[in-house]
């Protein structure tokens, strides 16, 4: 399995494909924004020529908008959308198919079409850390690493800052994370992005590297969450609230 991150950029320039407005949504489609796909993605985003992803059936698509107040939504998709702030969002799609993305901005909206195709998975090199035979679960099965940029914490909303320090998240990790190499400390870490983790467990080192690399690819200063249960996981922006972080962790670590 491979986690893929694709970047879109939104610019307030032209119109997306014209489609009927969703029921109960704003009725006026205007020059809200347009998706500019990365080079490796084909298509134009129109219904008859959707953006096509062949990289994997399991993708994390990251969207960036310049307009404040833009809310993204995916129609009829098994998606998991997180609005990071008013400017961008990330969501996951777990099934191949043709999807319609709607960006809502006040009384206007825009649409774009994209298709997820089953493709050949790349080598699993950056995949989630695997349990070592001698490292049996003691209290749980998760590794959780949060990477932050200490010089940019002031820009975080209060709720996300609170999530970084949350004792509830730490309590959850105490009962759902693997024990570290000392046999008792949960494999839950919050590090600055330039921390030397060479003395940490191999799994934490791997998860930390993944978070830092993905953060750099996304060009983000936002805190980054990497969670793995050894089989599947998540590497993406830290959800905005303590509750959202715990919900995310529960996907991989159970209730």
């Amino acid at each position, binding site marked *: 399995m491979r986690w893929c991150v694709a970047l879109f950029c939104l610019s307030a320039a032209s119109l997306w494909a014209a489609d009927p407005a969703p029921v109960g949504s704003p009725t006026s489609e205007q020059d809200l924004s347009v998706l500019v796909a990365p080079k490796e993605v084909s298509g134009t985003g129109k219904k008859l020529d959707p953006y096509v992803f062949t990289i994997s059936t399991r993708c994390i698509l990251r969207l960036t908008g310049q307009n404040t107040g833009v809310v993204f939504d995916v129609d009829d998709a098994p998606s998991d959308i997180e609005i990071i702030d008013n400017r961008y969002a990330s969501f996951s799609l777990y099934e191949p198919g043709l999807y319609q993305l709607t960006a809502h901005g006040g009384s206007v909206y825009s649409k774009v079409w994209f298709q997820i195709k089953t493709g050949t998975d790349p080598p699993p090199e950056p995949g989630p850390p695997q349990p070592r035979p001698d490292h049996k679960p003691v209290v749980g099965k998760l590794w959780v690493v949060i990477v932050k940029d200490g010089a940019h914490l002031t820009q975080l909303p209060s709720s996300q800052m609170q999530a970084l320090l949350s004792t509830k998240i730490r309590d959850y990790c105490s009962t759902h994370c693997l024990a*570290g190499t000392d046999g008792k400390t949960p494999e839950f870490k919050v590090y600055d992005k330039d921390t030397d983790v060479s003395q940490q467990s191999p799994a934490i080192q791997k998860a930390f590297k993944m978070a830092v690399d993905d953060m750099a690819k996304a060009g983000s200063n936002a805190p980054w969450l990497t969670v793995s249960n050894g089989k599947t996981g998540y590497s993406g922006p830290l959800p905005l609230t303590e509750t959202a972080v715990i919900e995310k962790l529960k996907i991989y670590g159970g209730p």
Partner: protein
Amino acid sequence: MPVIVIDESNWREQIGDHGKLDADHPQSGGAERLFGCRPRVSAAGSLKFAAAPTFDVYPRTEFSSRIKDLVQSESTLRHISQRAGIRSKDQANTNYCHANSPALAIEILRATQGESHVVLSPGSIGGPVTGYRNDGAVIEDDLRQIVEFGAATVDFVPANQVSKSGWKPGAVENAALHKVTHWWDLGDKDDQMFLRCATLVLQGIPVCVGYNWWSHAVTLTGLVEISSGKFGFEFRNSWGASYGDDGYGILAEGKGTPDSAYAPRQATASLK
């Protein structure tokens, strides 16, 4: 336990007549208290290991809501310390407040990072800094010691060890596991100092501070709203759990704005 709020009206109660508090002084916590924090000597930026701050500060108008968010979710540094089992330090009859403050700060920082809890020995810092004498120092000297050599746990060096005779074999190697790799030097006292310190404690970063009026160093652990629109720092002293509320007190903004301040940003990522 009573909450101590130090302000312009009562700050002299924290200071003895002869450079120390006798054991029967109401603020002494039952032990003779010495003061050992010397005034900041260097100008900002002279410390190569402690960078000048590059972060923006929170506007004062956000303080109330940010305090409320952290308190309601039990995510203040005090909550994190309590959860990790970090106890109040007691410098007893040493002058090592300058070492107790950063030792406590590293323990707190390790807790925020998710490292295991270790009890660090101020004696392993203050001893080398003072030439193994019961003497005061500027906080910078202790920081340099921590950056270069780290702080050993009390398993290797007793908490208030002054001479080197009490150092056990392996203490130097153990100290190397507990360094701080990045500090912020918050500079000289100015009209932004309070905001810088307030911003950092709201971001979960403990701040080691020195007060010239007190000749004392303590660790800032939080921001509190004393009354509507008036703020102060929650701090943890190194005078044992009998001081204030489990070692915690409050410094109102005027007296609480430090003359020197240093914020540890990253402790060594180690499990031991």
